[in-house]
């Protein structure tokens, strides 16, 4: 794969069309196998567990897809969901990125019209693996545009199994990113393709692809900022061409119009500052285009005059535009940036101001090991790829470099955006590996052919003979450059104009010393490179099989007496759906909202779509309050059941007690009577006997540890916090336990009804009746009143 077979042969050897055809067929089959690899490496979760939807958000997407298939696209568009965010409800049609749902719905429709009766769930489970195959192919196309087929194939195979992407696209991980990464890469491919060809056809396709990306994921802002940056880079470095204009201007106009059609984006496409960069560059490129046009029709002297005029006018216009922009941006409270975007620019922003964003683990900055975990050896290959991209630097390769740099920065801000880095790293590493193989095999072939053919003097002679074995860099570079400028001309009708412009830029960079390594070194280096690739494959397969395949609703643990399966979540949701009224409201921390609506079909107060901070803060306040105040808050929200996740018995670390400080912070952010220091002893979060009384009396503590002491004969040892709990024996006055799952991971409580009678408050009697709490009906602590 290292040798760019067809590129070289295409132009130089009319005598070997067979070889040319063979190369294409080989590439085709390699791509097919890459697709199979990308699909099958993601099936570990189905094989090891079962064919289920994973985690949290995918359950929402699954539920939306079911709705779409049942009710059709118009009802989906107008869907007002009254079973979540009670009592506010949520306009799902206008707040969801519909790309994934529509994709899966279309796949389901097509399959059913072909009489393939797959269930909706199966379609949803396997959407992500299918689209990762597409993403691998898109990577091939993109890298091929940058550096040729060899690099393309290498990049594709790397992307097919990059752990970072696998973590978001295993079978069952039915989330936006599953299709969005494909859309992202494909949009970039079409942009590069347009840039290389100057074809309006590809520019239009590019807009449509961008539209699909906007439909799929909020990460589309990455595209609409990266491409303008690249355009600006090209202009600044004097690489402006009409191809650049064709690649950019239609994208902005059509892309913005199309993006505004997506309900969730709507006017944001022109109103928020995430999109302003594209408009600014749109103006700049027109100014530049005008300047070039005027330069073409005027004499140099006249042009000088005109340039002065234009520059002065341009400066004025720019100042005006900048002033307008600043005014618009400054008039909005967050300076026009949404919280998630601001946290991209200022990594500390979220943790300082928005606990609800900071509370999500995937919004935290990544650690160094996570880079090694997620992109593995690619991290070391990327610099080599950058160097390869500089030799020679073309529009396309500069774009790839820019893409890499930006995504490295963003991945350093938010661990979730590692996903955007992965394709860039794969492309770079693909280029690097391909170039390395190229050099090594070329050296080996050079030595071998010199050994076998002692008469070998002129390399040019060899090429017709050997066809696919370029021997000298100068030649190869020449050929490639020729190719780069020729290929568009075959496809484009306007080749004359293009070719006039291009060689002036390209031919300067073709000077390059021939690089031939000693044969031993080549063999050794080849061996090491293959070894490196081998490590990568081993690591990726391990990551796919062990690290990223857990569905997180079913947990397993290996211990000395075998495999344990913890299916408590589904047990609890099944209990809810079978034992509660259909209109009952279930309160839990927002993490479990999507699952409760999708699996238990019960109304929830808050869910993973964290659009209303106040509502979440209300639940957080209730969880942090003492029992009575919590009862009043929940009762005012018509809550019947409260669900808590507790890992202390089996050692499940991501339970509600570990998330509790976020509830306190988010609750305290809106209702100031909840203060974080009240829950900390000397700045330490603890639940043992040193814990503060506020902590020990909070609803979350009580609901988590109620009757916990009965499980281990009076000790109450929490296996997650590795300590004995602080308050062991207590009774609940306003809540009653109705269900606890087998491993105590989910506990469901019911709100006790209000007392039928109000008994007299014991006045002076110090006797047994002190536990009675007369309720007067006034709700002072209730934030709703």
């Amino acid at each position: 794969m290292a040798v760019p077979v067809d590129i070289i042969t295409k132009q130089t050897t009319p005598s070997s069309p067979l070889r040319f055809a063979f190369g294409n067929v080989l590439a085709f089959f390699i791509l097919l196998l890459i697709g199979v690899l990308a699909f099958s490496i993601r099936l570990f979760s189905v094989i090891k567990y079962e064919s289920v939807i994973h985690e949290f958000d995918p359950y929402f997407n699954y539920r939306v897809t079911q709705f779409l298939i049942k009710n059709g696209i118009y009802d989906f568009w107008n869907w007002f969901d009254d079973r979540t965010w009670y009592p506010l409800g949520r306009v799902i049609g206008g707040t969801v990125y519909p790309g994934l749902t529509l994709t899966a719905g279309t796949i389901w429709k097509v399959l059913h019209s072909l009489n393939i009766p797959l269930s909706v769930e199966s379609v949803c489970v396997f959407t992500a693996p299918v689209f990762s195959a597409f993403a691998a192919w898109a990577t091939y196309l993109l890298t091929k545009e940058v550096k040729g087929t060899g690099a393309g194939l290498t990049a594709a195979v790397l992307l097919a199994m990059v752990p970072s992407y696998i973590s978001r696209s295993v079978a069952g991980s039915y989330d936006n990113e599953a299709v969005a990464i494909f859309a992202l890469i494909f949009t970039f491919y079409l942009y590069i393709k347009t840039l290389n060809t100057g074809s309006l056809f590809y520019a239009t396709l590019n807009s449509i692809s961008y539209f699909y990306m906007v439909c799929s994921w909020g990460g589309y802002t990455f595209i609409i900022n990266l491409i303008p940056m690249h355009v600006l880079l090209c202009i600044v470095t004097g690489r402006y061409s009409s191809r650049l204009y064709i690649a950019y201007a239609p994208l902005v106009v059509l892309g913005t119009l199309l993006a505004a059609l997506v309900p969730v984006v709507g006017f944001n496409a022109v109103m928020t500052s995430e999109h302003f960069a594209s408009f600014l560059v749109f103006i700049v490129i027109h100014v530049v285009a005008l300047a070039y046009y005027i330069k073409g029709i005027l004499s140099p002297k006249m042009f000088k005059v005109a340039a002065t005029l234009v520059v002065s006018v341009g400066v004025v216009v720019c100042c005006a535009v900048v002033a307008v922009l600043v005014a618009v941006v400054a008039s909005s409270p967050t300076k026009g940036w949404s919280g998630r975007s601001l946290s991209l620019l200022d990594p500390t922003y979220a943790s300082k101001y928005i606990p609800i964003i900071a509370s999500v683990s995937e919004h935290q900055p990544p650690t160094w090991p996570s880079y090694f975990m997620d992109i593995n050896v690619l991290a070391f290959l990327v610099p080599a790829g950058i160097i390869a991209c500089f030799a020679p630097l073309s529009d396309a390769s500069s774009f790839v470099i820019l893409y890499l740099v930006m995504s490295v920065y963003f991945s350093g801000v938010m661990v979730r955006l590692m996903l955007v880095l992965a394709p860039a790293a794969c492309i770079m590493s693909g280029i690097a590996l391909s170039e390395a193989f190229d050099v090594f095999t070329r050296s080996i072939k050079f030595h071998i052919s010199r050994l076998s053919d002692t008469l070998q003097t002129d390399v040019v002679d060899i090429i017709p003979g050997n066809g696919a074995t370029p021997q000298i860099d100068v030649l190869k570079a020449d050929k490639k450059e020729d190719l780069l400028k020729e290929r568009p001309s075959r496809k484009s009708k306007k080749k004359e104009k293009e070719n006039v412009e291009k060689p002036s830029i390209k031919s300067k960079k073709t000077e390059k010393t021939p690089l031939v390594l000693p044969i031993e070194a080549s063999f050794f280096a080849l061996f090491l490179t293959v070894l490196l690739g081998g490590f990568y494959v081993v690591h990726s397969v391990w990551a796919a099989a062990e690290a990223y395949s857990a569905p997180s609703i079913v947990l397993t643990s290996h211990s000395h007496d075998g495999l344990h399966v913890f299916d408590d979540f589904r047990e609890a949701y099944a209990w809810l759906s079978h034992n509660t009224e259909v209109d009952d409201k279930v309160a839990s921390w927002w993490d479990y909202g999507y699952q409760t609506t999708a699996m238990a079909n019960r109304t929830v107060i808050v869910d993973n779509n964290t659009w209303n901070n106040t509502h979440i803060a209300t639940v957080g306040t209730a969880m942090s309050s003492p029992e009575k105040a919590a009862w009043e808050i929940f009762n005012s929200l018509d809550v019947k059941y409260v669900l808590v996740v507790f890992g202390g018995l089996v050692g499940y670390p991501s339970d509600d007690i570990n998330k509790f400080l976020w509830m306190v912070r988010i609750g305290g952010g809106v209702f100031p009577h909840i203060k974080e220091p009240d829950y900390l002893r000397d700045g330490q979060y603890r639940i043992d006997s040193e814990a503060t009384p506020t902590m020990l009396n909070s609803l979350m503590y009580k609901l988590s540890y109620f009757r916990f002491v009965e499980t281990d004969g009076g000790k109450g040892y929490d296996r997650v916090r590795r300590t004995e709990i602080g308050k062991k024996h207590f009774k609940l006055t306003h809540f009653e336990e109705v269900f606890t799952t087998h491993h105590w991971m989910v506990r469901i409580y019911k709100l006790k009804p209000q007392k039928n009678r109000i008994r007299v408050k014991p006045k002076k009697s110090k006797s047994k009746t002190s536990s009675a709490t007369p309720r007067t009906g006034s709700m002072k602590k209730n934030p709703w009143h």
Partner: protein
Amino acid sequence: MSKNIFFFVILTIAPSLLRAFSPESPTDRRVLVLLDDFAIKSSHSLYFNSLKSRGFNLDFKLASDPQISLQRYGNYLYDALVLLCPSIDRFGGSVDQAAILDFVDSGHDLIIAADVNSSELIREVATECGVEFDEDAASMVIDHSSYAVSATEGDHTLIASNDLIKSEVILGSNKIEAPVLFKGIGHSLNPANNMVLKVLSASPAAYSAYPKAKLSSPPSLMGSAISLVSVVQARNNARILIAGSLSMFSNRFFRSGVQQAGTATKHEKAGNEQLLTELSRWVFHERGHLKAVNVRHHKVGETDEPAIYRIKDDLEYSVEIYEWSGTSWKPYVSNDVQLQFYMMSPYVLKTLSTDKKGLYSTSFKVPDAYGVFQFKIEYENLGYTTLSLSKQIPVRPYRHNEYERFIPAAYPYYGATFSMMAGLFIFTAVHLYNK
């Protein structure tokens, strides 16, 4: 379907209540009367006879009878319980404090007559219902200003009070003219407790103390804070009557004339009979029991109930409210029934208009806010059972095609767009074919 789920809640009526007396005729029928001794049966016969004459089936038992039980096989045997046994320490059979409270909590009614030196058991039951008797069990209510003029008694413990609650529902439409004779222990209520009502209170000059001893310290209960007779309506509309005197139920008090000290009028008959008879009508749900049926809501101009409303829909809401007269359901007429259209707070609050035949209705425009609303009626009128209806109904925003298609204000923009398109077309034609 959520539209069919209709919450008709007279607060938390337990299913067992429905078996005890049918909601169609809420008046109690079977009454268990527990007595200290059977002498009370004759000495208080006037009271019992008035109950019997109204059709109640009285079952007299000694409180210590080992055979008494309130329920069998999980079903209650009685609809109401009358405890005229102030001195009982322990009931016979399976009845105890918890059983009596469960009886109330499942919607049944209770009449308690305490007295001086009541047992701890009776006092505890009263405490659980929200009434606290004077801590000193031997104390009596003494009133030196409005005592009943009497030839024999001189310690002013037989008092004549006419400080009654002003409620026609509880006391009937005929005003009780004569003062009510009372001799017994006083109790106090927690003012924050809105379920318990003072029916007969003592005069401002009254106090509660042990009459045979000198007052060493100020009495704990004084003035009109002393309640002589109280009623409780629990959240499940179970009704409880608590009186601090057993003798006020007696034939002697029913028949005796009364003259309040300081007044010249001497009444032929004390108000006891009228008061206690009317109270028993109220306690046994012959009066003041409401029901709400046929909650309907629909868009103006339609008749079917929708599953969901849209913002700014015009809708009509109606409900029928009837009052139980003891024998049949009569239309309830009032002008203060209010409907809330509620989502965390009432967005619409309207007084329902009535056609005097029991039908209450109103119409309003759904507010410009979407979410899950409730039609809520929280009707708490003094003496009446609580009506608490809530019915969930979601309100959705406009569909994408329900907005105005062409806005007059936007015509300049339409014009600009189409002129631009035409201009571009002409320009293109000229540019291409004009060489």
